[in-house]
Each structure stands twice: as C-alpha cells, then as structure tokens.
C-alpha cells in the first residue's frame, strides 16, 4: 500500500554541496508542520498514555506511581474482558455481514447498465452520513413507541404486541449489525469494485470459453486476483469495528445490562465516568497492543499472498 521507494530527484544523495544542503533544509521545512502536529498530538500522547498507565491518576487530584498495579488490576476486571470478548465477537460478525452484502453489491455495480451509476450512488449515500447521525437515526427507528420497526411489525400482523428491540441482547445486537452494514456496505463495495475492475476481461473471457461456470470463475479467478483488495477492506473493517463506540453508546447505552459495552466504551466510562485516567490508560494500552498485533498480522497477509 505504501510505496516508500520514491526517488524522483536525479541528484546523487552523497554530493553535499551548499545548494544540496539548502534543499535538504527546505524539504524538512516543508514537512515540519506535519511533524510538529504528529509529535504533539500523537507521539507525545502515546508516550504519556503509557506513563499514565503506571499511575493511579485521578482526573482531579494528584497522580501516584503504582508500577504495574493497573495492569494487575485489569486482569481481574470482569467487565473489561467481557467487553473485549463482545468487541471481538461483534467485529467477526459485522465483518462477515459487511462482506456478505458488499460483495454482491460490487458485482452488481460492476455491470454496465444504464442506471448502474444511480444504484452505486444510492448504495454509497449512507457512508457519508456520520456514525453519530446514523446512530441517532436508528435509535429512533428502533424505538418501541415512536420508531418504525416494532410498530410496523405489529401493524403488518407479524407480532401481536410491540417488542422493545433494545431490551434483548440478540435483537439489540442484530439491529446494530444491520445498521452498521447499511452504513458501511457502500464503502466496502467501492473498495471491492476497484479490485474487480483491475481484473482483465480477457482472463474472464478465456475461462468462460474453457467452459468454467460463473461460480467457478468467481472462486478460481475473481477471488484469488482480488486478494489484496479484500485484505485491504478486511483491515479497514476489522480495525474500525474493534474501536466501535458511537452506535453502542447512542443507540443502546451499552444495554441491555452492559452486554453491549465495547472495549472503547468501557475505557471511556472508566476514564471519564469514574475518573480513573491511569486505569483507563492501562486499558487503552492493552487494546492498542491487540490492535497493532491484528494489523501487523493482516499486513503480513496483504504482503504475502501465499499466507492467506
């Protein structure tokens, strides 16, 4: 994905004339604002987060160094581990669901019909709506008294009484899965579409003439050739889902009974609800290590197609 070999300037690097040095300096000056921002708002906070995680650090009052106390404590934090398990479960299910919808959409949107462009735009529109707005919208659709789904089901005679979809874990969970698929399928469709369009039509055509069925062609040609694109969409979906917060906070309040409290939600609640900043930082560190690990594994798969 990242092409770091990028030498356009023809001048040999070794020659250090005055002009050359001035040019080096100019280059550094050009990237200086970006570096300052990344250092101030990313690198330093990252170091601080680790430092804080070694403290009992209340939001108000004085921090106290406690070594790895927070890390020991989090091994016994039942809610954190159940949040972690839930987050992973959600990530797996939602990623499968997104692909199950996005792939057919991409195949559909690849065809050259008169209205294809309209359909593509329609599928994509929910993507540009923010997660916050989308969550508020679905919080309403899911409301038992004023919403759409439950009253409509009753109206159509599918249910005898109105059921509060957010009162039960499974209905809450699947409602949010549907909402997230609705919101992000278009995004993944576009990514997959670029992969599909990269496959030459001659290859497909040759396979067709050789008598391969469309399913065979999809499995033997389309999928393998799209490995990199799929891996990219996978990485984006997995890391996004592991950090899910807005939809669970706004739609479900982590309910029913804290069962949809995600990892980020629990960190938020510990840091800014209970004001344990040090403990929240320790939780963040664990989440961060897990995420970087997942990203690295996925990047490996991306670089080395044989591994997939």
């Amino acid at each position, binding site marked *: 994905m990242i092409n770091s070999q990028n030498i356009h300037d023809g001048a040999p690097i070794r020659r250090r004339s005055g002009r050359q040095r001035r040019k080096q300096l100019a280059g550094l000056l050009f990237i200086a604002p970006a570096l300052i921002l990344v250092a101030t708002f990313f690198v330093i906070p990252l170091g601080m987060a680790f430092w804080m995680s070694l403290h009992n650090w*209340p*939001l*108000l*009052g004085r921090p106290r160094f406690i070594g790895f106390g927070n890390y020991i404590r989090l091994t016994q934090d039942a*809610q954190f581990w159940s949040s972690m398990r839930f987050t992973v479960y959600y990530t797996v299910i939602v990623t499968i669901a997104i692909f199950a919808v996005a792939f057919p959409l991409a195949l559909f949107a690849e065809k050259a019909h008169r209205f294809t462009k309209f359909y593509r735009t329609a599928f994509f529109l929910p993507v540009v709506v923010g997660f916050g707005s989308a969550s508020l919208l679905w919080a309403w659709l899911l*409301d*038992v*008294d004023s919403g759409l789904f439950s009253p409509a089901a009753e109206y159509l005679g599918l249910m005898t*009484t*109105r*059921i*509060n979809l*957010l*009162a039960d874990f499974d209905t809450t969970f699947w409602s949010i899965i549907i909402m997230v698929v609705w919101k992000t399928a278009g995004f993944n469709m576009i990514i997959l579409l670029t992969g599909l369009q990269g496959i030459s039509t001659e290859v497909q055509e040759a396979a067709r003439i050789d008598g391969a069925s469309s399913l065979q062609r999809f499995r033997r040609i389309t999928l393998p050739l799209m490995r990199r694109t799929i891996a990219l969409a996978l990485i984006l979906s997995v890391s996004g889902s592991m950090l899910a917060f807005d939809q669970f906070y706004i739609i*479900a*309040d*982590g*309910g*029913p*009974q*804290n069962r949809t*409290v995600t990892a980020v939600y*629990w960190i938020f*609640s510990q840091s*800014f*609800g*209970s*004001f344990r900043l040090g403990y929240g930082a320790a939780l963040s560190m664990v989440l961060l290590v897990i995420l970087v690990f997942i990203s690295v594994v996925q990047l490996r798969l991306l670089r080395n197609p044989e591994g997939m």
Partner: protein
Amino acid sequence: MKLLKIVALAATALGALSTSAFSQEKLTMWSRSSSEAFMPALIDAFNASHKTQIELQIVPSAEMVQKYATAAAGGSAPDFVSLDLVYGPAFAKSGTLEDLTDVAKSLPYFEHLSKAHIGTGTFEGRIYAMPMSADASVLLWNKKLFKQAGLDPEKAPTNWAEIEEAAGKVNALGGDIRGFYFSGACGGCNAFTFMPLIWASGGDILVDGGKRATLDSPQMYDAINFYRDMVAKGYVPESAKTDSGKNFFGGFATDKIGLSPIGAFAIGNLVKNYPTVDFGVTFIPGKTGGKASFGGGDNFVVTAGRDNAPAAKEFLEFVYSLEGQTLLAKLGSLPTRDDVAAEAVKSLDQRYQVATEALKLGRTPSSPVYNDIINSSTGPWKQMLNEVFFDDDVKGSVTKAQTAMQSILDDTD
C-alpha cells in the same frame, strides 16, 4: 531600553485592564437539565435585581458530572455549579470546591437550611456545598385515568398491594394506556424512586457510614418482586426496559400512565409544560404502609481559587430570601430553608405540601464513590435492577451486584 520599558508598562496596563474587564464579565453557572423548570427563571430574577450577573448553562443531567470534572481538570470550569447533592463528597475530596464554611456560618438562618444538603456538602468538618434546590421522591397518580378506571381519583394508594391493584385497573383500560412506569435502565432514577420502597419497609442499601452494601436483604427481594409482578402482568410499558432516564416521566406526561414514582422536580415540569395532565401526589409507601423518600436535589458549589465567595454570598442570600424560595417552590423545587418553607409554599396547591412533607422524611446515601456504585450506567446498581426487573435469575443478579458494590466500597482509599 527605554522602549522596552514602555512596552513592558503598556503590557502591564493592558493586562490590568483586561483582568478588570474580566472581573466585570458575567459569572458562569451550570445546572443540570432536570432543573430546567426553575433555574433559568431564578437566575433571571437574580440578574434583574443585582449588579452581579450570572450566565446560566443547562447541561444534560447524564453528562453533568463528567463535564464538570473534565472542565475543572482543564481549568475551564464554570464559576458556580448547581450540582446533584450526592456528588458533594467526591468533588470536595478532590479539592475542586471553594470552602464556603465562612459564608455559611455568616448567614443568620444557617441552622434552618436543609440538613440533608449540608450533610452531603460537608467534608472533613468544612462546608463545601450549600443547598440550592431540593427534590424529594413521591408517587404520582393520574386522576383522569383513575376516574376512567372506576377508582376514586382523590384517594391515594397507601401500600404496595393498593398500588398494584390501581395499576391493574388503569391498565385494563387498554389501548396504549399502562398502569405503572419507571425508567428500567437508569441507576440514578431508581435510587430516587426504588430505594424508598425498601426504606419504608425497614431495609437499607448502605450501612456503617456508607462502608457496607446490603443489597441482599429480604426487603430488597420483596420490592423486586413487587416490580416484577407488575412487569409480568404487563402493567409496565415495553419502553421502560431500556429507558436510561431519558424518558423519566415522558410516559406520565402523555396522560397514558396510571402511576409513577417521580420527584418534586417533575411536579414543576408537569405543571409548566403539560398543564393538561391532572395528577395527584402522595408518599412512596412501604410494603404494608409507612412512607419514605429520597432527599435529593442540588447543592450550590463554587469552583475553588477564583475569589468568587462574595458573589456566591450575594447569590445565596437571594436564593434563601422569601422571594427566592417562593420562586423556586412555584416552579418545582422544594424550599431549602425551613423557617420560610411554610410561607413559600402557602399559595401553592396541596401537591407541593406533600412533597415538602416528603423532604422532611428524605434520606440521602452519602459516599465518595456514589457515582460508581449507584449512578454510573455501567455500575452494579443499574445492572442489577435491570436484570431483576426483566430477567429470571433474581438471586444470582442480586448476589453478583452485592459483591461488585462491596468491592468498589472496599477499594476506596
């Protein structure tokens, strides 16, 4: 050199100018959204008659504590806050609050101020928070629905069996009318409305000076079964299961709920915003009678280190004046100064008298970790109630919550 001096002088002058300009700016004050019926009117009245000016901001109740603590840590806290009285100990402990002991003691009627408020506002012998507004939990019933259901609209239920019976009759009216409402996914709301059921029956939640949790008491199981029964019989709307307090009296306000335990703040809001709802107010009873109430409301606190004590005193004197107390009472807060309370609520209807009486019975659990154990949306109290009201493993949920709550209390240093 000379130029430098001039610049320095000018800078100092400018600095002095800007600080003096700053001190004439409005003082900022935050108040939570449940006090919206009376705080804006009170501040307007104060501003109209005083040189000191206060600018009020309403903060969503659920975010109040997080916002205030975050702002205080960031140095951008408002000057004054009308803070839910249960948070007094936590904020006083952290050093956020100005010591108001001298201001308090200088008031000639100090002895007459609400004891529940001063109690939670005192930390290590010093007073950090003063009564702002008072709320007491009471039971509301809808007179119109009572009449339709063939019940005496003027007769209030006095024990759990009567509540359940009345709820059943109202519920039988059908349609989208339901007998009873409570916010089933809200820790704070149910501290306010569910704890009194236990108190009135002789039980308690926190004992030994707030050091020990007693969730697994027989009174607790009785109260749980009382609610479970009504839920099982369909007297409670589906929406209650997931109401995290956002719709605390939304059902009652739409004239579709027979009975609901709420508070005096709600009386003000209902009268002001839903004038067509005809309701009665009574005490929250125990299993076989008796009565109890949660003494709630807000304390007035001052952010430390800003030299705002004189302005605070000016404001408090207005709040505790007959004019201030009458205004508060009229719009839904209960009087916080008992020697003028009778006078302040004199002109109001009998419903406020009930609430004023309830406040006298009011109890307030006090703990620096109140938020973690009771109010927090991820805390043990909320989780337990939601499970026991709507799920099946009552015993397991209570035991789990008891353990969790005790471990938080033990963890406090």
